[in-house]
């Protein structure tokens, strides 16, 4: 990419742009804009994006153990009926976040449906099942992106599936993002109901190890 920029616009001669005629100035600026847009056309993978977000929530010494967790069929069906939302597939991405002298936390990643495109999101749970952190890993729709607002997502923190308070009553609506917001609320509830199954598997030490340092 640096080669491409230099090919178009020699870096040491940055001041030369302003000595060019207006038409040539505009051409050079347009070329730089196009290259900039091209450079951000490629995004990182979902897994690596999620791990960056997980690491941002914990101490650098935490060890991440990754697994594609297969949801037991009977639990999947029951949770989907209760939340009125399907899991994207029969598996979700799970990370056990291990600490030296504290119980682990668990991150779970799945999709929820947007109006036309799926929204990839992640929930991090404390070992007691409380929601610690929610984030949108990838939002693909052209409207309704307000669900990625951190202040809105912070409302989920502390909620448990066993809570008497309905999750939808705890979360304020979102102007201009009704469908996406309702989808995320159902999605968080869905993963919170799945959490005990994942925790059981970790407890039984059945978690296979694909360690991410």
């Amino acid at each position, binding site marked *: 990419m640096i080669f491409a920029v230099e090919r178009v616009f020699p870096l040491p001669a940055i001041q030369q742009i302003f000595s060019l005629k207006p038409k040539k100035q505009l051409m050079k600026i347009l*070329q730089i804009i196009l290259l900039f*847009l091209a450079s951000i*056309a490629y995004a990182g993978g*979902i897994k690596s994006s999620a791990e960056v977000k997980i690491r941002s929530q914990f101490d650098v010494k935490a060890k991440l153990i990754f697994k594609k967790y297969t949801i037991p069929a009977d639990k999947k069906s029951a949770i989907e009926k209760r939340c*009125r939302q399907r899991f994207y597939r029969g598996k979700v991405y799970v990370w056990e976040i291990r600490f030296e002298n504290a119980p682990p936390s668990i991150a779970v990643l799945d999709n929820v*449906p947007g109006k036309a495109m799926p929204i990839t999101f992640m929930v991090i749970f404390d070992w007691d099942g409380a929601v610690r952190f929610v984030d949108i890993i990838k939002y693909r729709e052209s409207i309704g992106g307000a669900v990625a607002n951190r202040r809105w997502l912070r409302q989920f923190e502390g909620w448990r599936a066993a809570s008497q308070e309905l999750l939808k009553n705890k979360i304020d609506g979102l*102007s*201009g993002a009704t469908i996406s917001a309702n989808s995320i609320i159902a999605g968080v509830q869905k993963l919170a109901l799945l959490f005990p199954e994942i925790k059981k598997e970790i407890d039984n030490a059945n978690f296979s190890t694909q360690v991410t340092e």
Partner: protein
Amino acid sequence: MKHELCRRLSNLFPVLVFLFCCAAPTSAQDEFFEPSTTLGGYGELHYNLEDTDQSPAEKKLDFHRFVLFYSHSWTEKWSFKAEVELEHNFVTTGKGELGLEQAAINYRHSEAFGFQAGVVLPSIGLLNELHEPPVFLSVERPDYSKYIIPTTWAGNGVSLFGKKNGFDYKLTVMEGLNADAISNESGIRGARLKGYQADARELLYTGRLNYIAIPGFLTGLSFTKTKAMGTVQDIPLTLMEFHGQVRKKGIHANFEWGGIDYDKGSLQKSRGFYFDLGYDMAAKTGFSGALIPWFRFADYNTAASTSAGGDSEEAQRYSKWLMGLTLKPIDEVVFKIEYGYQKNGLTDREQRLFNLGAGYMF
């Protein structure tokens, strides 16, 4: 010659790189996305009663809208979205309506930039883009969203859109308006070309900016400019509106104000506003859905200023208040009941209004 060839290639190089990156996004896809087709839609049944002391009550039962939405996503960046709408159950000469409400190729390059091309919805007002029945409180859309902002306003054109630093924008260039159909009674509502072999001699330009950084609050404004073309005269006009919305702690509130200025012809200005205020009692009652009592006040005049003045202005002025109850047993289904009065500025005649509605979206 060699120098000229190198110069031309260096100018083309970034364009080619950019086009390649748009056309080959597969490196950004992963197992959380696969090409898919989605079917959706919304619809609403209305019972309308209008009653005055001077005439028998008018009562109507009407499946006002049946809309099918479908989309296909080829990649995470490229998709197609369409909506087909049938109004009033069926179409025959002079009755009902069947039309394309959306049919656009969408490209979402990033959060900050995307574009659409096809039958697009300009982003003007709160309801032109998002108007599924469970999204607004009343049985009918606000009169402001009919006579000042003529929703659903769709047409052939292109849009740019994106979100950055708490702001959300959309710019649209699309077909213009028919000056012959602009009237005191309906403002620009009848002037929409609706995409049918639209006259493109003069296009319509509109831009909207919203501030969305605070969850539960939305505020913004838009500006629209065009020259409506006609057989008798062409009418340059501008439309400015601003809007606000609150969805926080159970409060449901909308406010919109809009004005159209016409630079030629006997009609000079259209003006209007409304505000809605409701409160979701679900949390207090333990109900798992939404239960929202609400109130609306609206005032609009499609002929707020005319060259003739006087009665021609007052005749098109309406003020209305409504109160109602909106029930959503689940987010996608809504039942509505409302009661209110509408008053005409010239006759002072009051119409009593009673409406029932059932709506859905999926």
